[in-house]
């Protein structure tokens, strides 16, 4: 399938940046900022320094106005950078939501008086439609709301929702009956039963999700906030504590003076985990956005995080692990028969067979023996498959060619006076043992051989399962096949386990069993009969081509209807958590260097010997404090790309991953600020030198 990637604009496109800037200024409002308590505390500290700055302009303050002013400016920038990061992450989603909204505007619908009378309708606005209404949609018209096709089949362009330009078939009955409001019918007329009230439609939910208006904090995010708020509280107390302690010490040592409010506020902001707190909202939003760009809609942030925890993955065999249809892969002659004769007879029996299996027999015969034929030969009588005979084929020149299950063909050939080849049972059993389906072919009373019809496992799927395995995720294949076939395919696809002859209630039971054992279960599904299992699963991915019931039961919807997407979802789920964890570690590790900058700078006047702690050799107390504050502010925009893209993810055992990330973000987080603060201090020194040079006579 050719994909059009929606919203491919770079995060840093100038337009988006400007919008984000405007938005970030609005977000400085404390009433909005309270959702991020750490940054709110920083804002209050910034306000305090601003007040101190005002005071230093009019009165005599402990610190010169330029110093307090600069510190205050950088503290405000710290808050602004944080709101900017969030606005930037939201920006791209907003652009897409706006385009979606266009699809929703001013749609009218032909509401039917009764579902079976397509001639009697009234034209109403989409907002007037209620669940249970029936509407008629004709070619070229927009479907006014989410629903299910109850009559007819149509070609529908779902590009506004999926970004997929090729139209798809939507038909009544079966698993492809769901239609989405805002999509356009291209050909044929259908009757749709509306299943969702206006304002709750898929498109509406998507828009609110993308805009982040309804973004609720996930449990993990809240737990992380607990950590950050607690640390912030302690650091606030550390700074409050430093006031009286330094006052006492200054009095006791007879030199220096108590640490000023400006320095205390600077110390507080530097110590508070601002880096992670500033980027926390952006990480979650950006994670959802990365999913959108993979054409996956997560209906809650919780579902994505849960995806990162999944231990068991239930996959439908058909369409996920194997291509939807079985294919003929070999002709197996009975003793004394030539392979080509089997191929010829099979070809004849399949010429009129339009099923994918029948066509694959024709294809194989062409490929192996160059037996060219197309369409039904002239004068032939087609015998279609019937439940009674369980055979199909054709009669040509009085000779019947048939293919079907072994017992059915034996019965047919026996009826014509044929005998059963001695090796038939063995050969048929051999094919079945290998996980394939034997299709026996006869020409008149003579049983010639069998066609090996095989489920074709998708190429490259084994590698994906191995990747999942290395992440500790167990894969379970679910199939309606018999256990023998299932086992063979499971072995070929390298899944860890399989459930054969599965009925819907078996799926539900399997999920419950795993959950009882404490495991997190993900499953993909599309049919209405999958809905109960989807509702039970922790991570339920519904295909967009699936039924409305399946889509409602799921918490993630894959617009591409590609079941192996779960891998991407798992990966993004993990990435979001890892980015949070890594930035938390980085943020806290930073504090060590900041202490070595600020503590000697603010206390060395009291005890000059504490200058020994100035291991970075920073030029002056004020430049040390400024350098720490500037570093603390600048690190936020520097890490925005990381927060938006997520930290790199390679599947590896947990312990190695921890060591790697600790080295990268823990040790890196300790070292980086030493380098950064020293560099800024040197830069400030040069700047000061230059300023003095120009001002000096």
């Amino acid at each position, binding site marked *: 399938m050719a994909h059009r990637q929606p919203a491919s604009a770079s995060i840093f496109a100038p337009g988006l940046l400007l919008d984000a800037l405007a938005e970030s200024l609005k977000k400085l409002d404390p009433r909005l900022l309270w959702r991020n308590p750490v940054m709110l505390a920083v804002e209050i500290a910034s306000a305090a320094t601003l007040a101190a700055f005002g005071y230093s302009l009019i009165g005599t303050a402990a610190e010169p106005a330029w110093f307090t002013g600069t510190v205050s400016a950088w503290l405000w920038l710290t808050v602004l950078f944080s709101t900017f990061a969030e606005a930037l992450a939201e920006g791209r989603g907003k652009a897409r939501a706006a385009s979606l909204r266009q699809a929703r505007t001013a749609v009218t619908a032909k509401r039917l008086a009764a579902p079976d009378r397509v001639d009697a309708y009234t034209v109403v606005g989409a907002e007037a439609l209620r669940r249970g209404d029936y509407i008629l949609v004709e070619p070229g018209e927009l479907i006014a709301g989410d629903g299910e096709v109850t009559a007819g089949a149509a070609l529908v362009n779902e590009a506004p929702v999926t970004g997929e330009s090729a139209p798809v078939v939507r038909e009544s009955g079966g698993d492809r009956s769901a239609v989405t409001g805002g999509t356009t019918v291209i050909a044929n007329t259908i009757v749709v039963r509306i299943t969702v009230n206006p304002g709750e439609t898929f498109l509406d939910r998507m828009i609110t999700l993308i805009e982040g208006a309804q973004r609720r904090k996930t449990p993990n995010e809240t737990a*992380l906030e607990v950590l950050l708020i607690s640390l912030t509280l302690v650091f606030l107390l550390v700074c409050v504590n430093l006031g*009286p*302690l330094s006052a006492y010490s200054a009095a006791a040592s007879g030199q220096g003076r108590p640490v000023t409010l400006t320095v205390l506020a600077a110390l507080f902001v530097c110590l508070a985990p601002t880096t992670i707190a500033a980027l926390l909202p952006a990480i979650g939003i950006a994670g959802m956005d990365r999913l959108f760009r993979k054409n996956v809609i997560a209906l809650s942030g919780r579902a994505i995080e849960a995806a*990162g925890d999944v231990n068991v993955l239930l996959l439908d065999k058909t369409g996920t692990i194997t291509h939807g249809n079985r294919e003929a892969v070999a002709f197996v002659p009975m003793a004394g028969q030539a392979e080509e004769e089997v191929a010829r007879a099979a070809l004849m029996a399949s010429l009129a067979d339009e099923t994918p299996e029948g066509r694959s027999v024709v294809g194989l015969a062409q490929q192996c023996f160059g037996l060219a034929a197309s369409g039904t030969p002239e004068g032939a009588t087609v015998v279609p498959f019937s439940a009674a005979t369980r055979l199909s084929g054709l009669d040509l020149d009085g000779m019947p060619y048939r293919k079907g299950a072994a017992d059915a063909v034996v019965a047919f050939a026996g009826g014509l006076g044929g005998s059963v080849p001695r090796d038939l049972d063995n050969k048929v059993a051999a094919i079945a043992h290998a996980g394939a389906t034997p299709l026996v072919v006869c020409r008149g009373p003579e049983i010639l051989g069998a066609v090996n019809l095989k489920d074709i496992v998708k190429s490259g799927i084994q590698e994906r399962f191995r990747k999942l395995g290395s992440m500790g995720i167990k894969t379970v294949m679910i199939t309606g096949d018999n256990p023998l076939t299932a086992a063979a395919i499971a072995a070929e696809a390298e899944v860890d386990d399989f459930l054969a002859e599965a009925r819907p209630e078996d799926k539900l039971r399997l999920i419950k069993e795993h959950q009882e054992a404490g495991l997190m279960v993900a499953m993909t599904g599309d049919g209405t009969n999958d809905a109960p299992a989807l509702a039970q699963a922790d991570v339920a991915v519904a295909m967009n081509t699936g039924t409305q019931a399946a889509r409602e039961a799921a918490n993630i919807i894959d617009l591409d209807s590609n079941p192996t997407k779960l891998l991407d979802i798992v990966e993004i789920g993990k990435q979001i*958590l890892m980015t949070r964890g890594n930035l938390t570690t980085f943020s806290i590790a930073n504090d060590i260097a900041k202490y070595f900058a600020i503590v000697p700078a603010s206390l060395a006047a009291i005890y000059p010997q504490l200058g020994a702690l100035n291991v970075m050799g920073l030029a002056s107390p004020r430049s040390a404090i400024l350098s720490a504050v500037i570093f603390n502010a600048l690190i936020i925009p520097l890490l925005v790309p990381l927060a938006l893209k997520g930290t790199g993810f390679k599947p590896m055992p*947990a312990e190695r991953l921890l060591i790697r*990330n600790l080295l990268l973000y823990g040790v890196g987080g300790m070292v980086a600020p030493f380098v950064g603060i020293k560099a800024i201090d040197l830069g400030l020194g040069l700047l000061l030198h230059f300023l003095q040079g120009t001002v000096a006579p």
Partner: protein
Amino acid sequence: MDLLAWLQTGLLFGVLLLAIKPLGAYMAKVYGGQRTLLSPLLIPCEQLLYRVGGVDADEEMGWQQYAVAMLLFNLAGLAMLFTLLCLQHLLPLNPRNLPPFTWQLAFNTAASFVTNTNWQAYGGETAASYFIQMAGLTVQNFVAAASGMAVAIALIRGFARRRTALIGNFWVDVSRGVLYILLPISLLAALALVSQGVIQNFAPYRSVPLLQPSAVDTPLGQATVTEAILPMGPVASQEAIKMLGTNGGGFFNANSTHPFENPTPLSHFLEILLMLLIPAAFTHTFGLMVGNSRQGWTLLTIMLLLLATAFLLLYRAEVAGTAPLARAGIAGGNMEGKEIRFGLAATSLFEAATTATSCGAVAAMHDSLTPLGGLVPLSLMLLGEVAFGGVGAGLSTMLAFAVIAVFIAGLMIGRTPEYLGKKIEVLEMWMAMVVVLAAGIVVLAFSALAMATPSAVAATANGGAHGLSEILYAFASMANNNGSAFAGLNAGLDFYALLGAVAMLIGRFVPAVAMLAMAGSLAAKKYVPPSLGTLPTDKAPFALWLVLVILIVGALSFFPALALGPIADHLTTVGGR
């Protein structure tokens, strides 16, 4: 260190390690209600207790019920001890007719003994009668310790159990802790101490003539002292539980430096062993109860590592001495405030162990340690007393740190964090943060309050950075329920008595309730079996990370205060005062 010091340190840790497995397994059996060697003897006593108290031993409690029982039990203990102290003059076994405690001092002392702190704002031999020492203080030594152990056991059950609201019966846990664990070991230990010369009698204080009368200055002019008064008392019985229950409140003011409390190097050895014994064995009890003893060994290794490092730092600082000592021509390290009979190594080990656990008994004066040496006990307390810690409380705090470490590490590997198969969620994080930070918050807030109060500042013996250390140490000791004193501070001041009592009560019961809440929440969760994606918490990388989390949280919380206290003290001393 010389060979002898290495040998005695090695021997101590060797004996400790040998004792951990049997004792840990024994405690797991006791709290699991299984039969032990002592059952035939103690089951009747236990049954009698339950019958008297009207307790149904088979009925387990939810966490709220457990917490209420724990709080009520301790409140009753507080009220009883407070009353006894205030009525001392009316009670028997008071040969010196000591007056009652003032209410402030009584409140401080009652809070101190109920919270397993044993901060002593009074002098044992000059303020407390034998009755008070035995029926008041020693009783609390037992039950406060058992109370802390019960909370830890409830927390362990939280990790071990699945999908239940029940975390055990507080009354049963406390009774078994006292009957099966504390009493038998105390009995043996008291006998061993008596064999070394620790006294045990009800005799009146003895006057002994001095061989060499000496002249002293008194406010009334010069006087000649011809005799000394030797305090007596039932010391050994209190000494044993003082160490075993990591209580630390000495019978005498001089605590374990007093020859009647700690006469010989062997008694010194025994006392160190006693204070480490239960907290160390608890790690194995934990491992057994959660069904993976490697988890317990991991925590034990971390604790040992922290304690050994602290000991070596302290020992080195004391051996190095200070610049003023060197200028005075004094070689052989800093022996000020230490007992010659123990020497530098054994003293350092005692002081490191007493602050690494929440014992707080002292065999040397911490005020006289070198600035860097004094930083070690102070830091050990400020880190939350996790290097073994108090009986029960130490393991609980360590588990809270582990929860936090697991949380961050879990995120870093991209999974909802889980520890011992239990998912760590919002409630667990809140409770773990409360456990880990409550004492630190109290220290920061109360020491700031003291520094801003002139009368409180005036109570320090030394000015400058050392004075600041004294106040910081006092609140660190009280809030972390250690009870050791830096000395030098006039702790009898109402300000310290009352604020200190509050600090001790917060430092004990806020984390305890938080742990029980965490236990309740954990017990209700289902168990998540480990997979390839699960972070192993019984291996070196996680252990190292846990150590880092403990150190970083401690360092970040207290670096500025320490810079103005011991660090400034050290740096100014190096340059000469």
